[in-house]
């Protein structure tokens, strides 16, 4: 077994490298991903090793990247597109929602479009406008797309390989604020299959990141670490918090969360995206339906505000912090 300690960004790189090695139809496309290795260096060294036809520096046109990736997929390729920053995905939003998401359905299953859209997302890096956004709800609202976000290096490695192997398009949201957080990665872990209806969905199954009994904290991507820190602080105060890492917002693993909430009776959902019409709102509605009689308090949300992502000087007031999570937990416990 080959286990190495590496930052999350490098685990994504390892996942891409493994996918490129495993399948000659896999290719990477994006702006500055070749010689530069991408602005976050996630594709560092891959063009050198796999060539310019498999690791492609594209013109600076996001709709063009996704639109041509769709055509390549129709020809039998498995393109992985890098969108340089979250706020720059919108020129491609039309291709993603009106074409990529619908072609399998439009063709009655005759055409698969196995395209992965990698998006470094979320805040906390002191960036300028359009570089810190969390657009997951916009994509989760479109049938035909899978929307996932890893929180750990091991998940980044495993989920990237599963995403590339997926016959369905995947929006792969990389928590750029956690790119340099390190963890162990077993590089020999098998690529899980998505075709097994009976088995767990390897891209859509939540995991319990920390067990607890008094309150359930639900998070994904960058806020999993926030929730775990909050749970640590709560433990010091004598409150036992369970942390569920969703991994995926489409599909949404409601059963895993509901099972936890039935035990704890309380739930706080934490994400960087605005709370308004966010994935936390969907989860709150579903928990109300699924475990109404187990709930001791309303499901609370800690998220971004209904305001444009603020300037860097204010982002720490905007982002869900450990203190805001603790405040929400206090409010649920007050019921």
């Amino acid at each position, binding site marked *: 077994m080959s286990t190495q300690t590496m930052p999350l960004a490098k685990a994504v790189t390892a996942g891409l490298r493994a996918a490129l090695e495993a399948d000659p139809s896999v290719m990477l496309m994006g702006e500055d991903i070749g010689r530069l290795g991408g602005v976050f260096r996630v594709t560092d060294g891959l063009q050198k090793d796999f060539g310019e036809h498999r690791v492609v520096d*594209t013109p600076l046109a996001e709709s063009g990247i996704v639109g041509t990736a769709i055509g390549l997929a129709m020809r*039998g390729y498995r393109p992985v597109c890098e969108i340089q920053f979250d706020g720059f995905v919108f020129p491609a939003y039309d291709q993603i929602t009106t074409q990529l998401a619908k072609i*399998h359905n439009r063709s009655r299953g005759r*055409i698969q479009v196995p395209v992965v859209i990698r998006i470094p997302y979320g805040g906390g890096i002191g960036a300028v406008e359009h570089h810190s956004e969390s657009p997951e709800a916009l994509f989760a609202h479109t049938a035909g797309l899978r929307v996932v976000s890893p929180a750990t290096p091991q998940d980044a490695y495993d989920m990237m390989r599963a995403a590339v192997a997926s016959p369905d398009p995947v929006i792969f949201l990389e928590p750029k604020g956690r790119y340099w957080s390190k963890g162990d990665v077993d590089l020999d872990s098998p690529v899980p299959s998505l075709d097994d209806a009976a088995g767990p969905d390897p891209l859509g199954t939540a995991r319990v990141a920390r067990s607890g009994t008094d309150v359930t904290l639900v998070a994904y991507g960058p806020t999993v670490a926030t929730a775990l820190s909050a749970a640590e602080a709560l433990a010091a105060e004598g409150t036992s918090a369970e942390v569920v890492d969703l991994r995926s917002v489409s599909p949404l693993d409601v059963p895993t969360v509901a099972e936890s909430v039935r035990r704890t009776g309380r739930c706080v959902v934490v994400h960087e995206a605005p709370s308004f019409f966010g994935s936390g709102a969907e989860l709150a509605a579903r928990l109300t339906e699924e475990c109404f009689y187990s709930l001791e308090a309303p499901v609370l949300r800690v998220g971004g505000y209904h305001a444009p992502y603020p300037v860097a000087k204010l982002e720490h007031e905007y982002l869900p912090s450990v203190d805001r999570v603790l405040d929400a937990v206090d409010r649920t416990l007050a019921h």
Partner: protein
Amino acid sequence: MPHQVIDGSDVGSADVTPLVQLVAPTGERVHEPDNDGDHPGYAARVAHLTGDDLRAMYRDMVLTRRFDDEATALQRQGELALYAQATGQEAAQVGPAHALAAPDMVFPSYREHGILHVRGVDPVDRLRLYRGQDHGGWDPAEHNVALYTLVIGSHVLHATGYAMGVQRDGAVGTGDPERDTAVVACFGDGATSQGDVSEALVFAAVNDAPVVFWCQNNQWAISEPTTRQSSVPLYRRGEGFGVPSVRVDGNDVLACYAVMAEALERAHAGHGPTFVEAYTYRMGAHTTSDDPTRYRERAEEEYWRQRDPIDRLAALLRAEEHWDDDWAAGVAAEADALGETLRAGVRALGAPETTSMFDHVYATPHAQVAAERAWFERYEAETAEQTAQDAETAEVAR
């Protein structure tokens, strides 16, 4: 470049851009000057076509026109939700389709009924989308024709990406006609304003992708004339991206064939994309929901009716003694038979299963779709049971 100049000023346009024409509206061949260098001349590209070839093109144009008439009637009878007519554009569709090689892949917009006809897509399948029965309707792999795409210009990028895949497969420049593959992106004058079309030209140009950008300028994007899309002739859009570009008389089936043949040759050889503006006219409405009397003049429609592409080919066949009344009667009978097949086939389509809306949303199991499908099936079953019980109660009461 050899060309015949036609003056569009009598239809209210100052556009007198030269265009490739091989057959005049009167049915006479246009004699182009001899060419120097490697350009073989467009006339040379149709010199091999026999009387049978020309008659086959005529037949396809007549059948395409009849398909249009029948589909329009079916919409009026409530059998189709909508239909987009191709009448007037038969030469700009049948001509290029006859030039295609078997491996070539076509990405149509939603009005390319003539191209689909030549490629052998079943006529009833071509109307599933317009009946509201299917978002697609045929197997793209069977005839190398992608599905109709309704978002204007989106598929032009798909065509370009597909062509980039063709390059990666080594299926250009081999000299093997069964292997070398070109990709044709069909779109209209309105689509040239879409960013996706410009981006497709960028991607195709920098990659030398084997794409033919086949733009049918039918003069109208619903109610907006081409002057609302561009201040220069549309073929110059291609030039701006470094893509060899040409305007062809879109009502001259031989010129369309010749220009497409040249563009395909370039693509097959690995020499990259071509942009073609086929200058034609949408003789009908945009769709069956449209009313052109609100925005264009009868005189303009009449001007183009005098330039009907089917009449022009008929005139050529007569002038060159390929016309035969018995054969023409046979084509007309075939068109009648197509009409009957279409009417019966469309009426027999019925409606899809209600649960089919949940089919193929994903290729892999998805918990949300599975849960909603299960709920819907239970709801339908309970509703059906309740309806049956109500009927029974009403029967007993009676």
